[in-house]
């Protein structure tokens, strides 16, 4: 696991009020029961930590070009944005 992935999982665990060990890359986000406020706080934490802009509209989560379906999907999407920034 990359350091980026590790950090992302820590952030998700923090917002979901879970222990790190409770999450795997296969964990579905809807299983975490994040409410709408926790979702926007999660997105904000990812943006601030990695200095990226995540396309996300709470009126249509999932419709934006950013896969939030599982922990692994978020890791991949954030890593994609981070590498775009570096490019």
């Amino acid at each position: 696991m990359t350091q980026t992935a590790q950090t992302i999982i820590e952030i998700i665990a923090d917002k979901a009020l879970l222990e790190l060990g409770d999450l795997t890359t296969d964990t579905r986000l809807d299983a975490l029961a994040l409410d709408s406020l926790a979702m926007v706080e999660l997105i904000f934490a990812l943006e601030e930590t990695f200095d990226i802009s995540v396309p996300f509209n709470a009126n249509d989560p999932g419709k934006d070009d950013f896969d939030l379906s599982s922990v692994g999907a978020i890791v991949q999407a954030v890593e994609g944005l981070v590498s775009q920034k570096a490019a």
Partner: protein
Amino acid sequence: MHRVVITGAGTINALGHDVPATIAAFAAGTGGIGALDIPDVDRLSIRVAGQVRDWTASEHFDLRGLSLYDRMTQFALWSARQAVAQSGLVFDEALGLQAGVILGTAVGGLGTIDDSYRAVYAEGKNRVHPLTVPRLMASAGVSHISMTYGLRGPAFSVSTACASSNHAMGLAFQMVRAGASPVMLTGGAEAMLTFGGLKAWEGLRVMAADACRPFSADRSGMVQGEGAAVFVFENHDHARARGAEILAEVVGFAMCSDSHDIVMPSVDGAVRAMRGALSDARLDPGQVDYINAHGTGTKANDVNESTAIRAVFGDAPPLVSSTKAAHGHIIGGTGAVEMLACLMALRDGVIAPTLGYRKPDPDCLLDVVPNTARRADVTVAMTNAFAFGGLNAVLVLRRM
């Protein structure tokens, strides 16, 4: 208990600088939302808004006023000027002692706060404008209207987020009905199209990038507006005795709290507010001809409100529309501006359309008078406001 009537109305919003321009835009289905024009707009991800255009404050206020009035207060005063002029009221010593003003505003003078923070934080200045405090007070608009017209009775501001002006008008209604005052100026004002204000809204991720589309399946959130509307609420006998033109009667009001969530609405709260207002007006659901919906264009509100309206009115509800796609969400001032759509429905028999509507959403009401105004015989109109934090306020009006 006294009957309460409306004898004057004034406004400024993205559709126009007065009531006739606003009503004409409602009837024509013209929208006021467009490209946002404020400093640093290129650093915002949301760049559309229902902005008041071509407003030159120096044309309306003297130098003293210009240094004292935040944009919110300017809008409130300008609207009050129209409303008082239309009412024909002269506030002499006796009436002035009893008359008052209640306005809704969610935040107050945000432009003033924004400017002062920019000065000290961004520009490194060590002083701000000396009148920053009296400009930014949420109650500044109330005080300046009181001073302008010599209103020395009850005067205060109400802050309940997006329901502020409905709460304000509801309280004004109750005061006149109870005989506490023969005349109350009431409504609401908001001017938060500032860089800091919009940054705050961006953070919630509920803003549409292009357009507000209430009740449409492809809606993507709200669009901010700004402006004000102020009305003269008057004791019916007082208005009749002086031969005033009566625009409509205010017949019912209810407010309640969801006690549920700081941003997500509840069906129960919306249902109780609408039923409460009908009960207060001693009307049955079947007697309502038009509902001006809160209709923000967010996923959450529009489904919630549709469900609540069906619960109160059954599967064949009265005509419903949201004008937020025309003037934007004016936050604390929005209920007051939307009251104008109710006045148009009652007086002209024209329902303001829900602009931006493209695609039915089976979870929402299916006929929301999409995109084009419609003729209808309206005797009773209801106007809804369901604010963040679950604070609900609903008013009912009747044609005179």
